[in-house]
């Protein structure tokens, strides 16, 4: 359909592909086409090597022993914290809490800051396009406290800011918003959302699960109060993530879990807590994955987010254009500002059937509600088919998706 066009504005996609061993896999007898990057990205060889290197050469518990390995492991762990600080431009390493991922980061805020500060009648605002991770913790909190959860509505993938302004009041204590929607790809205007929330005296948590890999993140410029992301969506290992919080807020928050690592001194009468960030890192952390997060973030920075964005946006435009030509296809979410996520439905066809038939051609897409059921209800659909593109995807792969769809439709209709 197109001439080979894998070198886009300096991004050598073929060279990048060679760094991702999983892309060599055959699935159902065909070369894997991996379009489920919004769920998790594949890992480059440097990340895999760094994991092996950590367990081969450094494994020890952190912040405890005075022996060499413990000191080296601690140094790697803390170097990674610093890399994460840089990656999102936090002002200090004390503001970087290691978590299991976005979900745990949001829950941490709900359980600590939320329990301390939310009272009956208070209001928390989220949006209609949240992932369940940014809905359920607030529902639990609101139920416990008798507080009220409100949603900013959206239309065709765009949040209605006028409606948001109407929701804000002196009762609003927190606005928790998804930066980039995993189901629609929309980049939300978090700058405006944050400014308005602060004017109303509310704090803002930004769910950066989808944005961190695509956009340049500067938590100081955003002036958000909390920001959470997951390593595994940024080419890093699973099981590790970061919660950023403004220092004065974190200092005033009670701890999340009790245990080792998070204490200064324990007597039976009273425990004093460790300083930031350790107050929120009870128990032996996920040291190996945390240490390797640095490798992943440096890998992304070295390739260059802007170049990658340019490439991914081209794939998005190309795929969207071709999808729209298939009879019966409706794109779900047409915000002007999107990352490389395209969600769609097809008349008279269940997304799951498409998912199964594409898988049979080695093409991995996501089908279903994408953990965003309230959003699916807005659209009156059970789910969508979602293709999400990463730095290593190509137009040739998009062509395969289109051919796969056409063949599937021939079988199904």
């Amino acid at each position, binding site marked *: 359909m197109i001439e080979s066009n894998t070198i886009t504005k300096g991004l050598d996609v073929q060279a990048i592909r060679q760094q991702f061993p999983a892309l060599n896999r055959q699935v159902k007898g065909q070369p894997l086409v991996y379009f489920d990057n919004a769920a998790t990205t594949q890992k480059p060889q440097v990340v895999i090597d760094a994991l092996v290197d950590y367990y081969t050469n450094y494994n020890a518990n952190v912040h405890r022993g005075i022996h060499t390995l413990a000191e080296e492991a601690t140094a790697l762990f803390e170097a990674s914290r610093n890399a994460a600080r840089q990656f999102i431009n936090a002002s200090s390493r004390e503001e970087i809490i290691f978590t299991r991922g976005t979900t745990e980061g949001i829950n941490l805020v709900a359980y600590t800051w939320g329990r301390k500060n939310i009272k009956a009648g208070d209001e928390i605002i989220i949006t209609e396009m949240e992932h369940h991770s940014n809905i359920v913790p607030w529902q639990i909190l609101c139920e416990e406290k008798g507080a009220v959860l409100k949603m900013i509505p959206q239309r065709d993938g765009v949040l209605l800011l006028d409606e948001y302004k109407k929701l804000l009041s002196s009762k609003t204590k927190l606005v928790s918003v998804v930066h980039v929607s995993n189901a629609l790809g929309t980049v939300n205007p978090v700058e405006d959302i944050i400014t308005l929330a602060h004017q109303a005296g509310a704090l803002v948590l930004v769910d950066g699960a989808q944005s961190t890999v695509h956009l340049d993140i500067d938590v100081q410029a955003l002036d958000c109060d909390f920001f959470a992301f997951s390593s595994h969506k940024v080419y890093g290992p699973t099981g590790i993530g970061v919660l950023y919080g403004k220092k004065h807020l974190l200092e005033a928050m009670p701890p999340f879990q009790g245990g080792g690592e998070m204490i200064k001194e324990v007597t039976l009468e009273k425990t004093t807590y460790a300083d930031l960030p350790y107050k929120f890192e009870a128990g032996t952390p996920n040291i190996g994955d945390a240490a390797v997060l640095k490798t992943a973030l440096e890998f992304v920075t070295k390739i260059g987010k802007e170049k990658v964005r340019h490439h991914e946006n081209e794939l998005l435009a190309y795929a969207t254009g071709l999808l729209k030509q298939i009879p019966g296809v409706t794109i779900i979410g047409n915000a002007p500002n999107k990352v490389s996520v395209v969600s769609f439905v097809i008349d008279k066809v269940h997304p*799951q*059937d498409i*998912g*199964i038939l594409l898988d*049979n051609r080695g093409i991995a897409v996501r*089908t*279903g509600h994408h953990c965003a059921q309230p959003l699916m209800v807005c659209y009156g659909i059970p789910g969508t088919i979602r293709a999400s593109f990463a730095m290593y995807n190509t137009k040739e792969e998009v062509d395969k998706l289109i051919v796969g769809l056409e063949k599937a439709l021939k*079988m*199904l209709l």
Partner: protein
Amino acid sequence: MSEHKSIQAIEDELVEEFSLFDSWDDKYEYIIDMGKKLAPLENEHKLDENKVRGCQSTVWLVSEYNDGLIRFKADSDAIITKGLVSMLIRVLSNHTPDEIIDADLGFIQKIGMTTHLAQTRANGLLSMVKQMKNFALAYKIKNSMTHG
């Protein structure tokens, strides 16, 4: 009709039919075709209480018990799932509760369904089997209460 065929005989028939296809595209085509041919379920049966849990798509399954035999009817909003349930109905419908409870359904594995379908859980094949066996068990218990 398959009134007199044993469950095992119908399973063998299906394994035989699937052995004629060399590609999964063809197998899917056949499953889809079975889905399209499945008699539609009346809307009055499309109730929440008739939904099979554990499927990404919606599956409705109802049963009738007459003259010692169970008959199943089903529908789904996804066509491959509908084809799978249609296959199960072909195998299990018109048999006694005991026959259904004892069926080992080895054909599912023999036609490669378990290894091939990454989404076995999503399309809820096993949930459907379990639900059909539960119906059979319920009729059996009801029988033993009325007769014994």
